[in-house]
């Protein structure tokens, strides 16, 4: 009996142990993420996926900060203060290498956005459409295509020769249009610049067709794409391609022939009465498209990517940033025709350090850590000035509508300077005035680089940085070293 008990005890121990295997624990389901198998299974997941495309575009390395910053610091109006390669001192000096932080990260961030769009489009076709219904699906797909268009267009500005150099015949970008979800798709050759522009316009045209005219939530009219967004972006793309007739065609859809300049269809985009107000009230009708920020981690640009961090001086000088770039004292701020009474001058802050050093800073973005200034993608004022420039160039005259458009932008901030057709001797003077207006109006909004390159102008010297003519190495960026290493079909610039 005793022996029997022993065996029973032993057997019991063994049996309990084996019986207690929890085989279900071998296939745990993630509780903090959604697996790809069910990512498009509900309307809210599809909608959240769509918003993630904007979210990808909003990354600090892309439209959340650095894309705009690079666009300005490549130009002549800023001086690098910290010599930090991580914060773009090489981009400023126009000599970044293939493995430079900016070159690598903008490339991967933009392509991540593009692939997210492609994955979204595929997921919609494979069931997402049915989940949300065809009407909603069409709008969603249009929004996705717009995000893809912006991404490709943005990359063209840094990595490729301007369209004007050989009418887009130079090497463009690998044109990724299908979803990639795993290994094995590394190789793809670069299309031509023109082919990429064609795709950008195709996406924007298709987007314009299917996008909603407006949204019910006012903030969505700024943070999500609507018809006017696609139109406005097309005016920018055509201007960059020097296709001025098409600029006029697109801009005319939302800019009336005469004042008041206000979009007649869709969202009633127009100039905001106050220039400075655009950068504190982010959802005015002037902001056609902006990247929204909140103070929650992951919903703002993150460390060393923020507009205010780069442009605003340190708090010891009364700013909120890190003073990475000051304003070039011989740049546009030295221009006497930009009057001190101009409202836009209120964003130029003069500081005097304890040792007497005087600096000027751009304080257009002035929200401190965690830096929640919204990042502007495109404003109505740009469409107006693009239209003005296109008219001046196509008519090759001091076009009255062009002057009126320029005046509208100028007098909003500087009522004392009123241009008339007699202010300009010829079309060139008018165009130059418009270009100067763009430097003033959009300083810190990332378009200076495109304005220089689209016209094949030399990038002027500034501080210790040398100038770069269109034929110089450094006029455009090299291709990401990581791309060259892993994509055997990709060539460097």
């Amino acid at each position, binding site marked *: 009996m005793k022996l029997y008990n*022993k065996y029973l*005890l*032993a057997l019991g*121990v*063994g049996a309990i*142990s*084996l019986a*207690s*295997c*929890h085989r279900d*624990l*071998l296939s*745990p389901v993630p509780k*903090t*993420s*959604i*697996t*790809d198998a069910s990512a498009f299974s509900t309307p809210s997941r599809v909608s*959240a*996926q769509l*918003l*993630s495309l*904007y*979210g*990808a575009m909003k990354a600090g390395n892309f439209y959340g900060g650095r894309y705009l910053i690079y666009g300005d610091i490549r130009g002549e109006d800023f001086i690098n203060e910290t010599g*930090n390669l*991580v914060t773009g001192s090489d981009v400023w000096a126009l000599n970044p*290498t293939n493995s430079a932080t900016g070159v690598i990260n903008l*490339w991967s961030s933009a*392509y*991540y956005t593009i*692939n*997210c769009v*492609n994955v979204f489009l595929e997921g919609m076709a494979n069931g997402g459409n049915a989940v949300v219904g065809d009407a909603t699906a069409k709008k969603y797909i249009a929004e996705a295509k717009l995000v893809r268009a912006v991404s490709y267009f943005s990359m063209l500005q840094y990595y490729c020769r301007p369209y004007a150099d050989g009418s887009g015949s130079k090497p463009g970008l*690998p044109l*990724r249009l299908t979803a990639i*979800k*795993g*290994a*094995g*798709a*590394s*190789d*793809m050759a670069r299309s031509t610049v023109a082919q990429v522009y064609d795709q950008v316009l195709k996406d924007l045209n298709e987007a314009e067709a299917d996008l909603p005219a407006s949204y019910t939530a006012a903030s969505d009219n700024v943070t999500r794409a609507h018809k006017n967004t696609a139109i406005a972006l097309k005016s920018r793309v055509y201007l960059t391609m020097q296709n001025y007739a098409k600029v006029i065609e697109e801009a005319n859809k939302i800019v009336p022939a005469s004042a008041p300049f206000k979009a007649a269809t869709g969202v009633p985009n127009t100039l905001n009465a106050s220039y400075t107000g655009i950068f504190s009230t982010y959802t005015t009708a002037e902001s056609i498209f902006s990247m929204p920020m*909140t*103070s*929650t*981690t992951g*919903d703002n640009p993150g460390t060393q990517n923020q507009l205010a*961090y780069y442009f605003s001086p*340190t*708090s010891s000088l009364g700013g909120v*940033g*890190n*003073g990475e770039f000051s304003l070039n004292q011989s740049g546009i701020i030295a221009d006497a025709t930009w009057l001190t009474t101009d409202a836009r001058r209120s964003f130029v802050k003069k500081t005097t350090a304890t040792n007497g050093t005087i600096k000027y800073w751009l304080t257009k973005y002035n929200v401190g*850590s965690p830096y929640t200034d919204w990042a502007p993608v495109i404003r109505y004022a740009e469409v107006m000035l693009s239209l003005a420039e296109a008219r001046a160039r196509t008519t090759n005259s001091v076009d009255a509508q062009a002057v009126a458009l320029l005046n509208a932008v100028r007098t909003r901030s500087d009522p004392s300077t009123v241009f008339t057709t007699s202010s300009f001797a010829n079309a060139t003077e008018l165009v130059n005035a418009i270009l100067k207006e763009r430097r003033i109006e959009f300083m810190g909004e990332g378009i200076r680089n495109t304005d220089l390159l689209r016209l094949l102008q030399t990038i002027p010297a500034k501080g210790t940085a040398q100038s770069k003519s269109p034929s110089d190495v450094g006029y455009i960026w090299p291709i990401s*070293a*990581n791309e060259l290493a*892993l994509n055997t079909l*990709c060539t460097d610039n």
Partner: protein
Amino acid sequence: MRKIAIACLCLCWALGALAQGKTVTGKVTDAKDGSPLAGVSVTVPGGVGVKTEGDGSFSISVQANAKTLVFSFVGFETATLTIPANGVLNVSLTSSENKLDEVVVVGYGTAKKKEVTGSMASVKGSTLATKPVQTFDQALAGRAAGVQITIPNGVLNSPPVFRIRGTNSISLSSYPLIVVDGIPSYTGDYSQTASAGNALANINPNDIESIDIAKDAAATSIYGSRAANGVVFITTKKGRQGKAKVSYAGWVSVNKPFRNPEVLNANDYIAFKTSAVANNPTASAIQYLPSYDAQGKMIDTKWADQVYRDGISQSHNVNVSGGSDATTYYFSAGYTDQQGILRGNNFKRLNTLLNVDSRINKVVTIGGKLSFSNEKNIAANTSGSLNGSAFNTGGLGRLAIVLPSIIGPYNNDGTYNINGSAIGSSNIKGISSLSYYNPVPLLDLNNSSSENNHIQSNAYLQIKPVNGLTLKTSYGIDYLLVDNNIFWTPITGDGYSYNGYAWSGSDKYTTSLWTTTGQYDRTIANKHNLSLLVGNEQQRRTSQRYGIQRQNLSDAAYNVIQAGYTTNNPADLFLGENYLLSNFARLSYNYDNKYFIGGNYRRDEYSALGEKKGDFYGVSAAWDVSKENFWTKSGIQKTISSLKVRGSYGKVGNIAGIGDFSPYSTFGSGLYGGLATLAFSSVGNDKLKWETSLKTDVGLQIGFLNDKITAEVTYYNNDINGLILNVPQSPSTGLPSSPPANVGSMYNKGIEFTVNAAVINKRDFSWNTSFNITQNKNEVTALAPGLPYILQSTSGLESVNRTEVGKSLGYLWVVKTNGVDPETGKRVFVNSKGTNVYYQYYAPTGQFNYSTTPDGTTKYVSPTGATAISQAADAVMYANTVPKIYGGWDNNFRYKNFDLNLMFTYQTGFYVYYGTNAGLHDQRWWNNSTDVLTKAWKSKGDANMLYAKPVYSDNVSNGSSMPLNINVFKGDFFKFKNASLGYTLPSSLLTKMKLASFRIYITGQNFLIATKYPGPDPEVSSNGNTTIAQGVDRNTAANAKTFLIGLNVGF
């Protein structure tokens, strides 16, 4: 009834003996530390014996004609001694640690060392207990063949780089599996802050009985999918029968910085930097002017003195052990408070351990262990020395050398010298910000600490229903709770742009483990020894964190996370789980202890894999030649007293570090302007499986002169296949992460040699020496298709380690130089085609930065059209970082009551990239090494200069902007790791003092090093345990040298 009868019989016999004999009394102690030994059997040859009491004393009655007594005890050499006339015989027994009849832990059981057919090494806990370390693994360097330990930096409680037989993975962990009393422990750094937090610090080195290191497939395969990096078994001390025995061990030590670089003083700095400015016309606005303190004295700051200190440390441990026939116990409590050489870096531990075993009856035994440890890993500010922090602008190791000596930590009004986040530039004119931080306010105001509460416990039930059969089930838990806290002051430094910053993360890691085994041991016909083990094990681990990050401090006086801030965010939350289900078996057989064979098999199923099931095995055989008749008869045994050959082969795996949800591609939650998003966030692989290691091992053990000298030589080959690499896809694919795949392969092979010798063994003087050497060759044989190399960066900025097929891991990939041109002082780079390219930072009109001629007038154009030298185009695979040879040499001397230990470690055949040296010769405002005064080019004709003509702002010529071969040095070293001199009070004195034992000792650690390496210490790793980025010394705070005085007392 039966017991009483036996006792009576004994008593009668003893009384009878007494009547016609004499009584011998005395005391038995441990020769090593003089502590009393209880339970030693004292016998008359051929007669009956007694056991010593708790205080080591014995009293035995012997016949009048008895001449000798035999003293024997497990783990000690048996001593046969003559009975002196006065009948008092005090004996000290020598530990038999070099002997083959020891017991070793083999996984789910123990085995006699002589029966073990796998490759194992053992280290006694006592050799580690008195060392001034935070964790035992730091003290293992040089103590066993095949074991490589590198202390990565001078931050307290940094996990060492721990490798057994080379680095055996690329993306997964190469740290061995550490099994503590049967439970696989957490390993690695669990601190998320600027302090280091080795998870193994919960084990008080004083509580360790033994460390057994399993190296080959035979010894490790019982741990299947986790065995590829070797398995280390830690056994904590258990109680021994006898009266309660109390002992105390304590020490006090002082740590000092070690071989820090010398940088320019104020006068030299001004002169040298001014000359550099003169060489750069674009920098004419820059002026280096002295500053003066309130007394009018020129400021000449030794920044190293602001950052480093002499750290005072202490450790105290008390333990009690004892037990009855049925129940034994060991209870210990320890306290240590250690100061690092970096200001603000402290380590404090409070720990307790209770081990209890109780035999309820002949059949059933129960027991268990409960250990609790509280460890505080404290740092004020980042050291810049932990993995990922090498380029921190606040890195203390870096600030100590980069900051100019002409600026001070304070202004003359007593306030901190700061300029926003940076240090104030004082009288340096023309530079708006130095951008580096003032370490003093950071050390005063910041804090960064990680506190671990670690519970390890288990309980077991063991049943022996019939003779030879043991059934055991045990349940263990390992709870590691980590509280991380970081606070950055808003005044300056990293917290400045946040206007005050705090981050806290509360981590919980739990392991529960249920193991059930059945073992059957049987000897048939006295010759056939058979042992069979079968078992089932389930291990479940969960991990999680609550984290919060806060910014914009409400009040300047606050410095804790719980205070007021205006911006609040959840931070770094995670939730993970995995499950490992295993069945295993082991069969070992030997014939007459002469011929041995063994086999292990384990099937693991692991939740984090796509292909969950894996089968692992190891087979082995051994032949004890010296047991053969021909051997014993031949007489050779007098010279070669033992000889054994063995071999093993098997397959094991590695899963350490695979993400819990690797099989899945996932979409993660994010935000867009406050709205929820769901973004493609991770690429999985549903075919993912473990990495496999095919291990071959052939060894020979030989003993000479009655095993006074023993030696072991082993050849091993470890072929690793299916290495998991996160295979990078071209960035234009837009994938959110690199998908993992089993694609790589490599091998480690080598030879280990160990020799132990009792060189001198006299009554008053002995010398035991142990020497080991390991030669290892590592080579990567395959990476992923389309992946020609893997670059691993140091802290995300500088990539000097490149892993390529055909080379060892983490090869140094640098641009070659051809010295400095004597005529012009220009750095001469060597481009990819071997052409000299002359570089000048400042190019006058008509000249170029890079030129093919020394005069700078011929523009350099590379074969691909570039006009500059770059790492991508011109770097070469230059030197290996994996040591080819390493080992240790340990010597123990005893002269009467004095003992002396001299321990040396060495590593050779490897190179270190001394990246710090690039910074030390950077021609921005950065302070420079004093050697620029003699080794930098000054004027035409200066030949053989190491550094280029100083040109202000030049960060290219000496290696800051890309890694150059001038900063690669041989790392070979021979280190005087440890010297200890101890004195043990003689037992005559002890009796008077009513003490059982008393030993006092002094120790010096790390105080001498023979190396040609110019940095502080070639034994360094800026990238921690990263497998493919060893051999980098970038801004690292070096190791300390330590002097210690300690005391061990037994009561």
